[in-house]
């Protein structure tokens, strides 16, 4: 589904990703962990197509198509979703209007008819349940005045609405209390199918109690320095990163 070979990315002349190899297949769940500043969020942004980075790669493809040739919205319409670490507030734009335009522009790109108002409302009500989001939230401005927990639930609500093939969730667990974490994480697992894939970027093992990864990767100084199965996350939680970093010769 997602293939990355020798990916480099820099911003303002500073190299942040320094040769990433990474592959995600349908049905898989990957966790990316690593100390602050190791490039986790940059990796997510580069895959999504944020234009502030200078990017080069031997391969950066999604479903066999070269992502580097695609705009941000084209990537999204192919089924790539990014859950933001800091969801953006958009005053004056209601969640309902925002999602209606997003869903219908995605449908249009696939040659499908736009949803009717009734179909759309029904869909919103159903998907809001996935993360126990109050349906009234959809009449509020996007993320404006939302609590930290509401913002993260709202990211997963949008993921449910857009039904992506690959969801990359950037620290979706940060700033959540235990209940909100459970709701958000359970929501993500409900959306997981053998046809789609999830990449979670996280600092904490606790999210992975709910979203059980097939693979855990450690990103450090712009490279994936170690990969393992779910037991790696437990070891990192107990022992930190030092044993890996010390082991790692640049």
């Amino acid at each position, binding site marked *: 589904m997602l293939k990355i070979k020798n990916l480099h990315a820099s911003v303002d002349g500073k190299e942040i990703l320094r040769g990433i190899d990474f592959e995600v297949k349908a049905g898989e769940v990957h966790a990316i962990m690593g100390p602050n500043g190791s490039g986790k969020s940059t990796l997510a942004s580069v895959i999504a197509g944020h234009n502030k980075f200078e990017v080069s790669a031997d391969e950066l493809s999604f479903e066999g198509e070269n992502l580097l040739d695609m*705009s941000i*919205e084209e990537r*999204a319409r192919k089924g790539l979703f990014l859950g*933001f670490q800091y*969801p953006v507030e*958009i005053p004056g734009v209601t969640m309902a*209007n925002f999602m209606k335009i997003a869903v219908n*522009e995605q449908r249009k790109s696939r040659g499908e008819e736009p949803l009717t108002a009734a179909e759309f409302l029904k869909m919103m009500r159903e998907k809001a349940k996935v993360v126990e989001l109050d349906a009234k939230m959809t009449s509020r401005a996007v993320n404006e005045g939302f609590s930290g927990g509401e913002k993260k639930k709202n990211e997963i609500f949008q993921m449910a609405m857009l039904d992506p093939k690959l969801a990359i969730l950037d620290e979706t667990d940060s700033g959540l209390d235990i209940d909100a974490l459970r709701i958000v994480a359970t929501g993500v697992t409900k959306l997981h199918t053998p046809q789609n894939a999830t990449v979670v970027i996280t600092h904490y093992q606790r999210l992975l109690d709910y979203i059980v990864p097939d693979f855990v990767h450690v990103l450090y100084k712009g490279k994936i320095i170690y990969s393992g199965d779910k037991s790696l996350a437990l070891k990192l939680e107990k022992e930190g990163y030092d044993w890996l970093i010390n082991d790692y010769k640049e």
Partner: protein
Amino acid sequence: MDIKNLIAEGLLQPFKGGRIDDATSLALPLVVENPHKCDIEVCASQPVSLVVWHDNAKECALTLRLAPHAVVALTEVYASAKYVDVRIEQAEGSECRVTTIMLGGAHTSYETLLQGSHSSFKMDAAYVAAGFDHSVLSLVTRHLVADCKSASVIKGVASGKATGEFKGLVFVAQDAQRTDAQQTNRNIELGGGRIVSEPQLEIYADDVKCSHGSTVGQLDEQAIYYMRQRGISKESAERLLLEGFVEDVVSKCEVEALREMLNEAVQAKLNE
């Protein structure tokens, strides 16, 4: 955009000006259409919703007096270019909330006098200047006595060859201790549009909480990125953001029947 339709549908009732008291029917919001010279005095014990509608080019002088503890929600809509003076006088404990939407290159001057203690004034305003419009909104808030509050958020958009101008003054008299006054002016310049923003403070009391801020910028890049990541085209995202910037002010309008019409008018104006 025609207010007459809303009156015909029985959603608003016409009002000529004068005194509003407990004998006045307040079941529907009151609307004053194209006043030339209009004095309104509010003495009602219930909150009053008042709409002032401008869609001709005549000059207008409007005075609104709030008796002690009167509560008024005033919506002012400017659909045409004209010169308008609005004077608001507030007695003790009164509350005035103003929503202003300017779409037609008007020159409007507001002067609010907080004359009675514990009175409060709130304004949310937006001007959209397109084509060759020159829109001017001037707002003078005078805190004349102690313990009053004012909060104004003025938003402007200028595109094409238009100019949008905001002149704001918060005046705090020597005796107006414990004043709380906030004034914010946020603007977006598009294409060759030009914004002029002149916020001022003039403070003679020493125990006050005053702030003013002014920004002129382009559309929020991070918000555009966020929307594009959901599959929305760059053009749609920019447009949505711009509409949201103005419609955020429309959403403050307390006359529900007006909001949809105003949003449509804003969208039409942004197409110019």
